[in-house]
């Protein structure tokens, strides 16, 4: 056991440990408000989840990637089935009380299956890509991984949980990229969504169609696929308006608030404005640990989950933000290195997919706090309170550690970083 421990990937373990400690401290601070709420003791509950996470990580570390690869279809099947159950019988919670994100038994909320489904999708994509041994070269080749992602994507989108749904897309694209798919092809795959977003301005949309035509000519896909891409984009331009009308008012408001938070400062813009005020008032070194006034006086919404990063910005200032971002970057780099040195394709894809998932979470969560991204309720790894996501992260790190350990076992020289 001790020998095994010595063979662990210490940079990965170290950066994860530091991030977990940092996150727990900020969660403790998030509970220090002038009027105590349930948040004041939530760091203790996170500590319990963390312990549980470590147990899970150790367990999954002992599982061979071969066994994991064999079990993947079952895991994926169970995940999709549970998502389906969630959609039918799930309940909402907190600020998203109207949604169906939680599995509840006897009124007790057990967890959010969407988080664990992310891992299932990573495994399933890794298995398919690893078996294929050939980079997907055409849109037709991308159909199967697309379908693997689409099922949970749609089920989560219907909950509705746009943030998590987007993470599935990020996982897909990062793994396709790692498999060797040309970025231009990925762009073509993503083009209908981009077209949908840009359709709100006719001029911009026109320019996008022109650009896309150039892209199609340059990539030279099959004629049928090129036509399909173009048609899909045109169709998106047409359905954009009905689609917008179909969005729930809160979703519309969030998108509008992203564009102009001051338009409705009391309601939808409130989160963004107060978050920016918290971050901005932090300055270089912040107001001091646990002394953030925005947080203390409850101006920050969801300061223990989605908006925990503004607490970092307010209390520890730009310095604390830079430290956190650097730690996240280090985590991603370490994971990518592990993926590069994996002994088998399945492991490699798994770890790269995990990096892609974490990257999506970090960019979206940290970005929305300063209005770089629209608000979607998506947790920040190792910081936000939340059992399901913490377990997901722990399992992901467990898998990554195993993969790193395997490559060391096989004698891959550790000569970098």
């Amino acid at each position, binding site marked *: 056991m001790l020998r095994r421990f010595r063979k662990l990937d210490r940079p990965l373990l170290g950066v994860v440990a530091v991030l977990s400690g940092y996150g727990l401290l900020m969660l403790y601070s998030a509970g220090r408000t002038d009027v105590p709420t349930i948040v004041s003791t939530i760091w203790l509950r996170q500590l319990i989840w963390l312990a549980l996470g470590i147990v899970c990580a150790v367990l999954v570390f002992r599982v061979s990637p071969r066994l994991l690869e064999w079990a993947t279809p079952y895991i994926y099947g169970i995940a999709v089935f549970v998502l389906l159950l969630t959609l039918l019988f799930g309940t909402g919670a907190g600020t998203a009380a109207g949604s169906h994100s939680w599995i509840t038994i006897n009124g007790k909320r057990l967890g959010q299956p969407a988080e664990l489904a992310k891992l299932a999708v990573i495994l399933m994509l890794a298995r398919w890509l690893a078996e294929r041994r050939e980079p997907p070269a055409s849109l037709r080749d991308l159909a199967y991984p697309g379908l693997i992602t689409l099922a949970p994507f749609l089920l989560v989108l219907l909950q509705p949980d746009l943030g998590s749904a987007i993470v599935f897309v990020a996982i897909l694209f990062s793994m396709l990229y790692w498999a*060797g798919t040309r970025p231009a092809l990925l762009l073509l795959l993503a083009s209908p969504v981009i077209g949908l977003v840009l359709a709100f301005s006719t001029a911009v949309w026109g320019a996008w169609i022109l650009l896309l035509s150039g892209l199609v000519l340059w990539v030279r896909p099959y004629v049928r696929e090129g036509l399909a891409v173009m048609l899909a984009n045109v169709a998106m331009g047409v359905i954009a308006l009905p689609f917008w009308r179909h969005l729930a008012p809160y979703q519309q408001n969030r998108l509008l608030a992203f564009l102009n938070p001051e338009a409705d400062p009391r309601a939808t813009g409130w989160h963004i404005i107060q978050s920016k005020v918290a971050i901005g008032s932090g300055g270089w070194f912040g107001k001091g640990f646990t002394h953030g006034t925005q947080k203390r*006086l409850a101006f920050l919404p969801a300061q223990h989950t989605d908006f925990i990063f503004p607490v970092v910005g307010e209390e520890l200032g730009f310095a604390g933000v830079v430290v956190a971002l650097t730690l996240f970057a280090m985590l991603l780099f370490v994971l990518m290195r592990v993926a590069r040195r994996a*002994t088998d394709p399945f492991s490699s894809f798994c770890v790269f997919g995990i990096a892609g998932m974490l990257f999506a979470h970090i960019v979206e969560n940290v970005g929305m706090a300063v209005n770089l991204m629209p608000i979607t309720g998506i947790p920040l790894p190792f910081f936000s309170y939340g059992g399901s996501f913490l377990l997901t992260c722990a399992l992901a790190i467990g898998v990554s550690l195993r993969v790193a350990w395997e490559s060391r076992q096989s004698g891959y020289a550790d000569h970098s970083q």
Partner: protein
Amino acid sequence: MAVDPIGGALSRLPPHQLDAKLRAARFLVWGAIAVIGTAYFRTQIVDHGKYELQSESNRLRPITRPAPRGVITDRHGEVIAENVPGYTVALLRVTDSMRLQLERIAPLLRLGPADIERLLQRFRRAPYQRLVVLADAPFDVVSVLEERRLQFPGLVIQTEPKRHYPDSSAVAHLVGIVGEVTDQDLAGRRPTALRPGDLIGKDGLERAYDDTLRGKDGFRYVEVSALGSVVREGALGLEPEPGATLRTTIDLDLQRYMARIFPPGASGAIVALDPTSGEILALYSAPGYNPNAFVGGVSPAYWRELNVSDAHPLLDRAVQARYPPGSTWKLAVAAMALKRGIATMRTRMPIPCRGGLQYGDRFFRCWNAEGHGSLTLEQAIAQSCDVYFYQLGLKLGLTSMLEDGNAWGFRARTGVDLPGELPPAFPSGPEYFDRLYGARRWTSAVTLNLAIGQGENTQTLLNMVRLYQMLASDGKSRTPYLVRPTPEPPIDLALSPDQLAGLRQAMINVVERGTGRSARLGALRIAGKTATAQNPQGPDHGWFIGFAPAEQPAIVVGAVIEYARHGSAVAPHVARVIAHYLGADTTTARYEFRLPNDSAPRETRVLGAPPGDSLTDSTRAPAIP
């Protein structure tokens, strides 16, 4: 396991391509981190000032700290109006609507739906200030609220100076009341620092010297959470500047004495002046009210009680009510005759008093049906003989009487520094009667009535007291005042010292052996004049105006008591006030005596005054029954 596990394992890509992909991915991560870092840099460093300000204004709310009003003292520095600490319960607007906040707190403060509407109306006028819900909260309510303050977002409880009048109703009309500024107040004034919700003087000295008494409000910051709970009080802010102390000419001891000896249940007023300066030593109007009840908002019940009361307690009868001067006016007629050289103190009238005077086809009676016989002017004043003054009035002539009356200020306000002073009602000239009755539709009979202080002549108590102030001094008026005299041109009776001395001697006789004997006090020589003013609406009003010491007057006191029936019933009160001030024995020996009645005869009215233009007994208040 393969030696190079990666090579062919990961699809067909050669290792160098994998490394290239890794570099690109790293580049992407760096790029994302750089973009995010730049955004944070812009927010935290470049725009730091802006957001810091926002975060401060987020949590800190300024709350007005009202300035204590200036203290009002009497001439010796004794306190008439002061400030005591009181509790104010106010609400700040937070995330919930003010209506919701009020409804939540209403049961504890016993607010009804009407109160809530009233408060909301006030809130809409100044939505960014605290809404004072309870201006003078009792301690038990405050302690209950303090315990549950978390349940009431936006609740602010602070101690504030609260007006207090230790002598309550004894000084009510003098100091007046304070109240919250109304829209009319705001509209009427120059745009000063007055804001809705501020306290201003509504009456009396509080109103007349509001600018002096009102200090400058300060403010302090309180830290408010997003839910509106006041979390702690900030140290920053601005201390309020208290208003200046107002030293008045009042002798509080005399004022209290007046209130004490005033006949209980009666309506009327007493005014005491220093004849040499015009300083008002005391001014009391009855019935009084409790000015302390107005602090922090008068209760609707008390307000209704004050307004429906037949006695009109809010009316300041010294300056806001007009009464027919009755016989006190006879001194004015005598002075006019002396000034014009028509009579001396020894002049007798052609027709001696036989209980009345036949004039034209009417018989004008004297109050004494037995008649006074032939009298000199001096005796006529002492006996208040109507027949004598009918004839003196005719000799003087209507035009001269009105001319002098106007010149001597019987048509103008005295200019006392109290708000709401009513000008007396007095004809401006003979044309007045043409307008009133039509040209040549009236006879000189009006002159007879005017000569004895009846008819188209009603005066405020203070106006009549000023006449006696002139008689008691050198014949020149001193504008009565409480704090600072208004610069009014002085009125000069233009009487020689001998003539003044003669009138004073006559007034001494009034008290010594005339109609004012009830005012006689042991050693003190008081000069004065009684009057029983005819009151068409009920029993006659009684007057007495006197001064002492008769030789070198130091105080003039006038009193009018409604429905007193006889001036002689009023005289002892005035005498006691004078004696109290001069430190003499205040027991009036023959207080209970059967006293002569110098009432003007009732049935001698020349013509009934046309409805709607009544000069006979117009007070500001609705008709006194």
